[in-house]
């Protein structure tokens, strides 16, 4: 599964993109974030406040309860500030 990070999430995680092998029990975005937090202090810090995190699954906005599967492109980022 490909995971993309943008803005301060990218800086805190220390990478813009990574490919991960997801444990079978992770089935939605909330589960993915919990699993990421278990991977080390950088992740723990980056994902401490999930209310500040927005999600896209395969380039469509999604909620924390959105289902995810191998092969999906998941993007995690703060609220957008374009325009």
């Amino acid at each position, binding site marked *: 599964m490909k995971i*993309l990070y*943008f*803005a*301060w999430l*990218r800086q805190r995680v220390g990478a813009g993109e990574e490919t991960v092998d997801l444990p079978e029990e992770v089935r939605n975005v909330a589960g993915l974030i919990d699993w990421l937090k278990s991977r080390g202090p950088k992740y723990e810090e980056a994902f401490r406040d999930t209310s500040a995190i927005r999600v*896209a699954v395969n*380039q469509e*906005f999604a909620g924390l309860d959105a289902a995810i599967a191998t092969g999906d492109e998941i*993007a995690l*980022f*703060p*609220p*957008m*500030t*374009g*325009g």
Partner: protein
Amino acid sequence: MSVRIQREDFDLGAEVAALTGGRTDIGGVASFQGLVRDMAGGERIAAMTLEHYPGMTEKMLGEIEAEARARWPLDATLIVHRYGRLEPGDRIVLVVTASAHRKAALESCEFLIDWLKSRAPFWKLEETGAGAQWVAARDSDDEAAARWEEPSGTASKAAE
């Protein structure tokens, strides 16, 4: 009908001329240009860097544009959004809408810039005297976008 994400600057006059050239059905053209301000929250800004999500940005702007065309009778539309490092006074974003009549052009132009601010995956990093900081999303921007929400699920229907 057109969305561009680019590092390069753009020229309003040239863009409008290209959009309307050879057409005699357009009666009104509205445009909005966003520029980099030199102050934000009392801090002087030296520059800002815009980051975006290549692929999704084009897709979202295309969807936002399609929504505008579903709501108003538009003859031509253009969205240009820059990314990369920009300095105060630089142009960031351009929205142009053209219609037979002014009301559709003016309203849809405002709709596009309001929706774009809260739905297009861009993030701004400002360089100030105190260091670099990510711009926080503003409630007022969400409120501006929410004004255009349609009751009874019309908007979500159009987005399907």
